């Protein structure tokens, strides 16, 4: 189809049909329908196939327009009376192209001083489902999906309040993707919100394949192992963050949203901590922190003790350990690295498997592999128990990003303990803690409320107190609305 040849005229507004057609060349998904107004004046409808509802376009956009005379169309009131949910007048060729590309239907007539854009989208999307890596027991079972509009509507449905605001930014020089920054006015600190929006505006990138691109562009510690934004697919987590005065970042095309500012402990919290009784929630919370310690320290402690400090093993355990180790020709660090690396590979492979039952099976398979390794004299019996406990412990951490950080840290600890024994572990712990307390998330201390110590926020850290004892919002968000359950900030 040679559009260039046929359409060279300009509309009175300066919308250049030739320019539009040139730019839309080799875009076979763009439908260009020619009509005649008053049976003489040629005009065009543009829309993208697959992104628009053809039936609705025909009924609510094309038919009403074609039935109008040129004089009627010149009257903007008639345009706004079209039975479409959103009608916009465009006066610029590039705006027309952008509108078409974002899935709107556009009507252009050379005799009119404007083009008419109408949103009647019909995008193929998957159903709202529970996120596969963030399951919970007693909370809602819905997750975010890829289209931004749906995600915004999910949040709006949960927070029926006009104070829930979305500021949108278009990112990606090539992809022009929409990013929405959500916050609750009156709770979120506007200085942090505006600072974040400025930072997002300054991101220069071709396109965003995932929200991790935004995260990496915003982070103040790009070389750190630890995540400084909480990534979640759960609307309830996003809602909880918003109510706390935090900010969420949503990107069109991904079900994952980012939450900030967050502290280190946030990555060990889950909805079930709050949806059950406080004792149950506290138990789960403490279980996760125990898992964190096990996941990082257990293999390195094994190496340190078997290499340097065998005297600290109880005698009853020392004898079977020595017997088991006697069959192994490698030093402890090699032994542990062989098995840990195998488990990590199995785990990484399991991510590509169709279901998460596959993950469990794969880990079990890894352990069977380990059992065979014991038989072959490559590793000791005790190590199988240690690596299995470590693998299970690292699954307990609810955040995938934090879990990855822990997995990498584990290897660093193992190497240090193989050289310096328990002092290697102590120094690595000190270095990790030193790093954690120098970090920040959107300018807020990452290790708060532990250091700097905020006593009132301790009630929701390694444990959590009953809901009625948690009347105040956390200090970290620097909110002006400090009390939960009140419409404004009132001093006690």
């Amino acid at each position, binding site marked *: 189809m040679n559009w260039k040849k046929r359409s060279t005229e300009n509309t009175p507004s300066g919308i250049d049909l030739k320019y539009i057609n040139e730019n839309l060349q080799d875009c076979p998904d763009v439908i260009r329908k020619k009509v005649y107004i008053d049976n003489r004046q040629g005009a065009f409808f543009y829309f993208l196939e697959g992104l628009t509802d053809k039936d609705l376009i025909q009924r609510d956009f094309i038919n009403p327009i074609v039935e109008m005379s040129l004089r009627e169309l010149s009257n903007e009131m008639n345009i706004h009376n079209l039975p479409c949910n959103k009608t916009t007048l465009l006066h610029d060729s590039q705006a027309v192209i952008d509108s078409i590309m974002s899935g709107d239907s556009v009507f252009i007539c050379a005799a009119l001083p404007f083009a008419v854009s109408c949103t009647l989208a019909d995008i193929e999307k998957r159903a709202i489902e529970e996120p596969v890596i963030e399951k919970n027991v007693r909370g809602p079972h819905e997750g975010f999906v890829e289209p931004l509009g749906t995600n915004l509507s999910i949040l709006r449905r949960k927070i029926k309040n006009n104070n829930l605001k979305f500021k949108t930014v278009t990112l990606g020089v090539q992809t022009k993707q929409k990013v929405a920054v959500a916050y609750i006015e009156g709770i979120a600190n506007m200085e942090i919100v505006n600072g974040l929006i400025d930072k997002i505006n300054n991101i220069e990138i071709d396109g965003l394949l995932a929200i991790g691109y935004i995260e990496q562009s915003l982070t103040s510690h790009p070389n750190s192992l630890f995540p400084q934004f909480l990534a979640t697919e759960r609307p309830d987590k996003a809602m909880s963050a918003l109510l706390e005065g935090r900010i969420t970042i949503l990107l069109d095309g991904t079900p994952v949203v980012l939450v900030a500012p967050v502290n280190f402990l946030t990555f060990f919290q889950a909805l079930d901590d709050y949806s059950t009784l406080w004792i149950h929630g506290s138990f789960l919370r403490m279980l996760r922190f125990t898992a964190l310690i096990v996941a990082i320290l257990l293999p390195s402690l094994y190496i340190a003790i078997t290499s*340097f*400090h065998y*005297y*600290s093993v*109880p*005698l009853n355990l020392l004898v079977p350990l020595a017997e088991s180790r006697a069959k192994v020709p490698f030093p402890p660090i090699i032994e542990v690295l062989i098995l840990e690396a195998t488990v990590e590979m199995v785990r990484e492979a399991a991510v590509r498997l169709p279901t998460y039952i596959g993950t469990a099976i794969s880990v079990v398979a890894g352990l069977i592999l380990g059992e065979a390794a014991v038989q072959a004299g490559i590793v000791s019996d005790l190590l199988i128990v240690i690596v299995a406990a470590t693998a299970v412990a690292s699954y307990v951490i609810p955040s995938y990003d934090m879990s990855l950080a822990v997995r990498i840290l584990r290897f660093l600890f193992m190497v240090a303990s193989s*050289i*310096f*024994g*328990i*002092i*290697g*572990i*102590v*120094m690595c*712990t*000190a*270095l990790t*803690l*030193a*790093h954690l*307390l*120098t970090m920040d998330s959107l300018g807020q201390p990452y*290790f708060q409320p*532990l*250091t*700097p*110590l905020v006593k009132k926020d301790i009630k929701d850290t390694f444990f959590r107190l009953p809901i009625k004892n948690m009347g105040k919002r956390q200090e970290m968000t620097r909110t002006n609305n400090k009390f939960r359950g009140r419409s404004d900030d009132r001093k006690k």
Partner: protein
Amino acid sequence: MTGRNSVTSSQMALFTFVTQTGIGVVTLPTVMAKEVGHDGWISVLLSGFIAVILSALFAVLLKRYSDKGIFDINKLIFGKVLGTVLNVLLVIYLILAAVRGVRVFTLFLRLTVLPLSPPVAISPFILLPSIYLVWQGLKYVCRFKYISVISYVIAILFMALMASDLKTSFLMPVGEAGLNSILSSIPSSFLAFIGLELIVFLFPEIIDKKKAFKWHVSANILSTIFLILVVGVCTALFGEKFLQIQIIPLFNMARAYNAPILERIDLYMISLWFVVMGCSMRAYMFAAYYSLQKVFNMKNTRLSLALYFVSLVLLSRIPRDINEAFMFLEITNYTGIGVSLFFVICLCISFIRKKGVKTR
């Protein structure tokens, strides 16, 4: 002011407390047993009293010069030339104190956990957290000390666990050593309080200066209580005779406990205390590095930091053996007492030479 070096008075108090108790407490019970037998705790109590008085005098000095640190005060009191010379001497003291920290830390590691590892390999490794935190600033050095509080809590719980093994008869009769012996042992027990002088160097970085005095005195009182507790428990556990032949009684106390099932937990207790020792060592490292920047206008660059820490490691190797290392420790500690007395002299002179003294 919320720079990387800005701290609150309470953070500074924790800084002082950990600096005082981190390293000195490891050998203090033996030092006291050698000097005054089982009456060491009385000597510590008296030293604590002196430390509180000195803290008050430091506070008066700093208050007279508003928000200035000792390097500015020296220039005002002694003039530019003499003031600069004295400042350089103070910087040398701080560097030596930092070197002492590195050496003592390495030494205790060899005596307890890593007897076979070469010190040249251990020293740079144990400095890694310090290098990172000193680079970040005083705020983070102080924040890290919150972590060390866990070690104190566990140490106190551990002492409580040993309560059944303690013999109060080892502490009786009270005052048997005699007043003269107790008084003459005060310089030795006061060595454990070294660290109280650091506030005079770092005072400009405290945000809420009005509360500084209160918090600093509290830190010294807390140090006194903790040191008395450790000396008392060690004496009651080992008895003065056995204590006199030990080198590291605090760690030996950990070894004396036989835990059910686990049997030996001394390794973990000792390792935990190394976190506190690291904090104590780091305090002088930061103070020396900070002073180098103040006195010599040294920039905080990666190169200067690297050269600084390499120098510390190299200097820490100068004492050739354990005896020389302990001698070096003692000399530096006594220099610390000298520095504290120098600040008192500064206070006295400030009443004569009133240049820069706050009028209201």
